[in-house]
């Protein structure tokens, strides 16, 4: 006898503790097994692309802070690169190095959050998250030191940085860089070999290589799927061609690989930081750019490897002081395209884990 059963529809989110904000999944469940899933976004839609059309080029920078609020510095960076490309502005050497230092610190901070929250979604009762908060707090201190705030930095400017770093910045960062590998070892000791974590993540949420590419998935998720694609290497923006680092990739393309890729990227970021601090030249940190910038008519697309993936800004200028169109290619948004393929067939407990391993930020998804 076959028992008659009907699927259960569950609306996971927007008020759910592990949807990273206000994401909503419409899950169709058969018992505990996910049969169908539809991601629903838009609860945090603020129309940043529209707002950008009414602001001058400089005034858009604070808006970009509010995209991926765990990686604000890299958002600044992507935007200013796009404007610099549009208006052909030269950036001083020192500013480029500072951008690299700041950007890699941001990447470490963002990956810490991604891994910590993954632990939390696995049910670690906040322990790894709080350990990682400790290191993130130090990075926030550095950012507060250079730009005066801890979340919405607004530090980069068109043609450089808003100010040069204070003198106490470099020694502190050096100390952090020296200590950080030890802390990463500690996280790995806590998590990487934990049998429960292995059971929950190994083989779970596999995103095959071809599907990942065709779904426009970028960043650590794509690299965990075995694709060696990192814009810092494949299309070196800024001065990334001067540094030596590896691109960690996964083999199984499951949640565990994404976790490992993030951990290893943190180690690579530290390598880049070491080199960048050593090579940092003296000089100006900001080139002279008019306050009301009027780029020539045209368009520019600039992309960087943000902690979440490829963050791109497509700017169209009509020669006025405000961008005519500012399209943001948000990595979090495109990365959830493949969510359904990863989720179907897994249990409801895996849903949050797989979702967490993509590491999205709703500020960026909804813009």
């Amino acid at each position, binding site marked *: 006898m076959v028992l008659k059963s009907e699927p259960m529809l569950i609306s996971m989110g927007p008020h759910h503790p592990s949807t990273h904000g206000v994401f909503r999944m419409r899950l169709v469940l058969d018992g505990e097994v996910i049969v169908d899933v539809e991601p629903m976004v838009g609860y945090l*839609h603020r129309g940043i*692309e529209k707002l950008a059309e009414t602001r001058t080029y400089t005034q858009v920078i604070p808006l970009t802070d509010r995209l991926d609020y765990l990686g604000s510095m890299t958002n600044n960076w992507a935007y200013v690169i796009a404007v610099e490309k549009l208006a052909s502005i030269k950036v001083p050497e020192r500013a480029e190095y500072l951008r690299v230092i700041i950007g890699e610190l941001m990447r470490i901070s963002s990956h810490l959050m991604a891994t910590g929250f993954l632990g939390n979604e696995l049910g670690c009762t906040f322990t790894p998250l709080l350990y990682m908060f400790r290191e993130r707090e130090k990075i926030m201190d550095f950012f507060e030191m250079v730009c005066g705030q801890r979340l919405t930095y607004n530090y980069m400017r068109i043609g450089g940085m808003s100010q040069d770093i204070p003198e106490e910045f470099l020694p502190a960062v050096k100390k952090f860089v020296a200590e950080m590998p030890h802390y990463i070892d500690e996280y790995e000791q806590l998590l990487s070999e934990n049998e429960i974590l292995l059971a929950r993540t190994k083989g779970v949420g596999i995103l095959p290589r071809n599907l990942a*590419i065709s779904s426009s998935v970028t960043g650590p998720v794509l690299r965990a799927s075995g694709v060696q694609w990192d814009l810092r290497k494949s299309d070196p923006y800024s001065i990334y061609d001067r540094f030596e680092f590896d691109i960690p990739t996964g083999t199984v393309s499951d949640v565990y690989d994404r976790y490992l890729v993030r951990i290893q990227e943190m180690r690579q970021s530290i390598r880049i930081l070491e080199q960048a601090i050593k090579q940092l030249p003296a000089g100006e940190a900001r080139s002279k750019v008019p306050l009301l910038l009027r780029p020539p008519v045209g368009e520019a697309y600039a992309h960087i490897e943000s902690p979440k993936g490829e963050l791109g800004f497509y700017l169209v200028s009509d020669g006025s002081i405000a961008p005519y*169109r500012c399209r943001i290619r948000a990595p979090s948004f495109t990365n*959830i395209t493949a969510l359904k393929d990863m989720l179907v067939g897994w249990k409801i407990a895996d849903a949050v884990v797989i979702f967490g391993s993509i590491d999205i930020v709703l500020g960026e998804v909804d813009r």
Partner: protein
Amino acid sequence: MTVALSGKDLATRIGKAIPQMVISIADNSITVKSQGLFQVAKFLKETPGLEFDMLVNISGVDYLDYFEVVYHLVSLKHNHSIVLKTICLDRDNPVVPSVVSLWRGADFLEREEYDLMGIRFEGHPNLRRIYLWDGFKGHPLRRDYL
């Protein structure tokens, strides 16, 4: 370094395979007619030597007289990129063929463009608003939307 392919060379290659579709050529971009967009995209994706396997971004730009839809394509295999553009002149009912069947990533991107710019992507399996609610009037990212 990702090589931005020259629009001119590519346009001649496209012109040989799919004649009379390219409208204009810039340094690193080509503009095609919207009717031929899907064939051109398929050509770009499947021709050996080009193989643009990833669709990076879709942007819609409202130039008031016409809409321009910009596709940023990149090939992970050959590490080169191209900007593919298409225009649609009909302001009330702009229609562009959907490329979801070629690149899955176009799914959400096209839905977003439809939602905010009002460009309809014909052939999209699930073309509904994504950010705004279903009863929303107008398309906010159009330049004439206030």
